[in-house]
């Protein structure tokens, strides 16, 4: 064996006493969007941090000012690619608020069912990814499998798995398919079972609980001041849900609870999402029971809805009406409106300014993720570096929506 020739005195480690800067992201596996977190560490404790977003900025709002109102739908799809249907419906409702039209009851229930399915897919993704990042891979796979079943419904209804572009001003692109109700009921039954299994697997897991409990605590007042809405706000004990406080569609008529958390830590944010999925299942069950099997899903207003195809191809009136809506865009009266719905991550608002032409003058989307991410700095300062992962995961930052 060779003798150690190293002089131990001169090999003393130079330890840095000053804080160290560490760059997390923008391409880090735990930053599901693309976000860069610059942290200043003292040992393992975060003393200061700077959250930098914008890596997925695509000029969404500028692009919306170039087409017709209907051409905004594909853009809002791509804002939130985990629950695009909620964005579709939110934008459609804001436009309908300006046009002062109300879609038929069948369409309202249809929108609610699709929206709640999208919410389930959103929360499944968030909670599954959160568990995976903390080492629990099995629940992630179960939840992704369930999400795929939800997306099978979407694919059957809309033709697209992810970016549906299915909403229309004044209705939906297509009426529900024949097997829609049976398919939905089967999937939500399965969802309930998966949630029970996931809870059994995770909520008795010491490692999982230790990583989440008492980590990233934020009080209700602070969360309100930060503009947090949705599950992250409710986890801090503030029972604010747009569906309950300002009901739209038929949310005033269905029964559901608004789950709230106690402490506002990462565990509460995880559990609020699990409970919300159960409430979504309840809402879907009621809506499926109430949705009519027959009837139109569109308003009967030739100014906003395209005529049936057989009229377009056989009558001059139908052709002209189709041409005007497609080429000029439907005319929304001049003015401004703020339409808000409960998106997957909180209050999803659309501030629309119209000048009366067929093109939007200004489309401002109020992204819930943007405000949630702005609070990340506050909740991880003072925590350990390893806590960045559950804290960031629990906020469910959707890059497309945050950066637009």
């Amino acid at each position, binding site marked *: 064996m060779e003798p150690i020739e190293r002089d131990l005195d001169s090999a003393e480690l130079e330890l840095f006493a000053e804080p160290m800067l560490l*760059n997390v992201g923008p391409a880090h596996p735990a930053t599901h969007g693309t976000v860069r977190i610059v942290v200043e560490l003292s040992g393992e404790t975060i003393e200061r941090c700077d959250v930098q977003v914008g890596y997925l900025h695509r000029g969404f*709002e500028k692009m919306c000012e170039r087409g017709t109102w209907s051409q905004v739908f594909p853009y809002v799809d791509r804002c939130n690619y985990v629950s695009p249907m909620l964005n579709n419906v939110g934008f459609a409702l804001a436009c309908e608020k300006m046009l002062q039209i109300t879609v038929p009851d069948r369409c309202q229930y249809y929108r609610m069912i699709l929206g709640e399915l999208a919410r389930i897919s959103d929360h499944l993704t968030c909670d599954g990814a959160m568990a995976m990042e903390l080492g629990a891979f099995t629940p992630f796979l179960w939840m992704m499998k369930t999400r795929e079943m939800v997306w099978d419904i979407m694919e059957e209804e809309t033709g697209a798995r992810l970016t549906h572009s299915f909403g229309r001003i004044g209705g939906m692109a297509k009426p529900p398919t024949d097997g829609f109700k049976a398919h939905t009921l089967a999937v939500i039954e399965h969802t309930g079972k998966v949630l029970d299994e996931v809870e059994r697997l995770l909520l008795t897991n010491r490692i999982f609980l230790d990583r989440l409990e008492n980590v990233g605590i934020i009080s209700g007042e602070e969360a309100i*001041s930060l503009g947090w809405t949705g599950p992250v706000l409710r986890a801090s004990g503030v029972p604010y849900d747009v569906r309950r406080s300002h009901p739209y569609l038929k949310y005033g008529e269905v029964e559901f609870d608004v789950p709230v958390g106690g402490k506002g830590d990462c565990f509460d944010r995880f559990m609020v999402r699990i409970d919300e999925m159960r409430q979504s299942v309840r809402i879907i069950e009621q809506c499926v029971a109430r949705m009519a099997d027959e009837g139109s899903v569109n308003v009967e207003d030739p100014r906003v809805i395209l005529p049936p195809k057989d009229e377009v191809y056989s009558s001059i009136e139908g052709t002209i009406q189709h041409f005007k809506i497609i080429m000029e865009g439907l005319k929304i009266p001049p003015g401004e409106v*703020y339409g808000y719905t409960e998106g997957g991550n909180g209050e999803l608002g659309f501030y629309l300014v119209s000048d009366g032409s067929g093109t939007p003058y200004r489309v401002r989307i109020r992204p819930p993720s943007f405000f949630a991410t702005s609070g990340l700095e506050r909740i991880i300062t003072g925590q350990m570096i390893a806590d960045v992962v559950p804290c960031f995961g629990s906020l469910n930052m959707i890059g497309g929506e945050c950066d637009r």
Partner: protein
Amino acid sequence: MAKALLDLVARRFPGKVLESHAAFGDETVVVAAEDWYAVHAWLRDDPASDMQMLVDLTAVDFPSRLPRFEVVTHLVSLRLGHRLRVKARVGDAEGQSVSIASLTPLWASANWAERECFDTLGVSFAGHPDLRRILLYPEFEGHPLRKDYPAELAQPLVPYRDVPNIEKVEPFGPYEGMSFGRMTHHLPRVTDPKAIQGRD
């Protein structure tokens, strides 16, 4: 309910509410830019309005009008359940002197919202603690959501941020060739490209 709120604002600030309307069910007041902070502070603190949350802050560009920009906030009271939109008009025709008081002392959500508004529309907020670009990068020229910014405009390429002697630095340690390396931690902004210039 909310109509009463409009009257309340008009009574509290006589002559300062330039116009108000409730089109499409959204109550709106337009105030002068110099009253921006005072009106918001009152709306937040008065128990009759009790606007706990600043939901959104943005601006709209009207190049044909003077003042050119409309800064818009949406407020909500979670306790009373009412909402209000507040607007103020700022800026001259060239898009200069677009400045208004920052609301960051009142609501923490104003921080990023104002940064985004500054970034995309070039509205500067007096008193904001950290007014820098948020969605776009520091070298970006212009403000893309202004109506005079053409959507097709290509931005100049950002020159490579040169780090001197990058081949010679050790992969780890105090001289690692990154802008966020240990040598630069004392600088106020870690993303500042100048931070990596002065070292050899």
